[in-house]
């Protein structure tokens, strides 16, 4: 076991600020970071991630590897919810709709977890390719569609009316489509990626003092806010969720990581790229997917999926998960 890596990951300012927020919330401090400010920071972070990824992509060839990784990423996002759904149905008492909605979160990704892993890579001297950002953006959505298919199939077999079929169906579909494909994280991430790719190193030199240098500091501030949110979720979660359900939020990332490790082996990815793809697979969404679920599966209870993904999986990932995923990456990496 690489305890140095675990310590380096946890004792970084970014993770420590997360823990600070978490502890403050658990102690029931009433401090908050205004939503408008936190949302602004989130947009900044995605612009920065996208730009840097785009510039990195502009400097390397578009190889077959890239195409294969994209394919693998999309497939992971699409298929992991199936496993998550089965696990939830087998090991917890969650109903079909709650299980499907939760499963969608685990197929999709957390961009902050991705970024934290990118930082942690530097502790062990690994590098990664810019196109992983594109893979991250790509993995946001298929999981949502997958969950809807799961629910739809079950509905058809039981003869129920689909949730979306009441009301003005076509309109709702259009709205859902826009929410799922044109939500802020995808627009900004993909847009910034394209801009970074178009303008290249020279183009973003002028904006680097804003988008590159202060990035880690902004991340600290953002993670303080996430710590507050996670702590609140956790406090609520202990009371409401059964241990079996909470356990899912720990073992599901490990299942996803294992599967992704296999995929990386097949693709022959480098250690750094593998570590990031494994992290993406193991991470769970807490912004884009919850919003989409309120539109597509409003009967599912947000307190379940939010507590699990933000209150349990996210803290687990950015402390113990990432070192583990990096070790898996090193182990499988070409």
């Amino acid at each position, binding site marked *: 076991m690489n305890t140095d890596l675990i310590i380096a990951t946890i004792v970084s300012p970014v993770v420590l600020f997360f823990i600070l927020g978490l502890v403050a919330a658990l102690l029931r401090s009433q401090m908050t970071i205004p939503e408008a400010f936190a949302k602004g920071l989130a947009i900044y972070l995605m612009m920065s991630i996208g730009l840097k990824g785009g510039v990195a992509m502009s400097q390397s060839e578009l190889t077959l590897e890239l195409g294969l990784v994209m394919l693998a990423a999309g497939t992971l996002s699409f298929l992991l919810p199936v496993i998550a759904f089965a696990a939830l149905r087998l090991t917890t008492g969650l109903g079909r709709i709650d299980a499907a909605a939760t499963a969608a979160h685990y197929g999709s990704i957390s961009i902050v977890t991705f970024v934290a892993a990118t930082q942690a890579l530097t502790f062990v001297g690994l590098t990664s390719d810019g196109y992983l950002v594109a893979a991250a953006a790509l993995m946001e959505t298929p999981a949502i569609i997958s969950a809807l298919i799961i629910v739809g199939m079950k509905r058809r077999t039981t003869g129920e009316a689909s949730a979306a079929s009441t009301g003005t169906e076509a309109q709702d579909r259009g709205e859902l489509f826009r929410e799922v494909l044109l939500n802020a994280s995808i627009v900004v991430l993909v847009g910034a990626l394209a801009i970074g790719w178009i303008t290249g190193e020279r183009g973003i030199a002028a904006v680097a003092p804003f988008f590159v240098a202060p990035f880690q500091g902004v991340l600290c501030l953002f993670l303080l806010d996430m710590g507050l949110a996670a702590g609140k979720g956790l406090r609520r979660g202990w009371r409401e969720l059964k241990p079996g359900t909470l356990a899912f939020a720990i073992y599901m990332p490990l299942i996803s990581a294992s599967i992704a490790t296999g995929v990386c082996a097949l693709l022959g990815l480098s250690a750094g790229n593998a570590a990031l793809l494994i992290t993406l697979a193991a991470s769970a969404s807490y912004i884009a997917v919850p919003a989409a679920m*309120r539109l597509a599966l409003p009967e599912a209870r947000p307190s379940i999926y939010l507590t699990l993904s933000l209150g349990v999986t996210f803290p687990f990932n950015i402390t113990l998960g990432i070192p583990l995923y990096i070790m898996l990456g090193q182990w499988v990496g070409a």
Partner: protein
Amino acid sequence: METRKRLEIIIESMAQRRACTILEEVGVTGYTVFYALAGYGRGQRWSRDTDISDASDMVMIVSISDEATINSACERLMKLLSRQMGVLSVSDVAVMRPEQF
């Protein structure tokens, strides 16, 4: 002053667009949306500033209109509210320029 109805819908913000579309379709002359900061329902508190996802945010939509329009809005909104979180209420208000509503 004449009497009109004031419809107040407190609904999750993800369903705001759906509720607004219904109001426009039944033909209210206008509505205004406010955002809620925090709340409580079914034993659970939520708060805009600590919930990082938009999924638990609520908004309030206020629309002043004549009784018939509000009634047809209510019917369709209740269907929406059977799936989305929120509450709906209607009260009497006096207005000065009834032709406006």
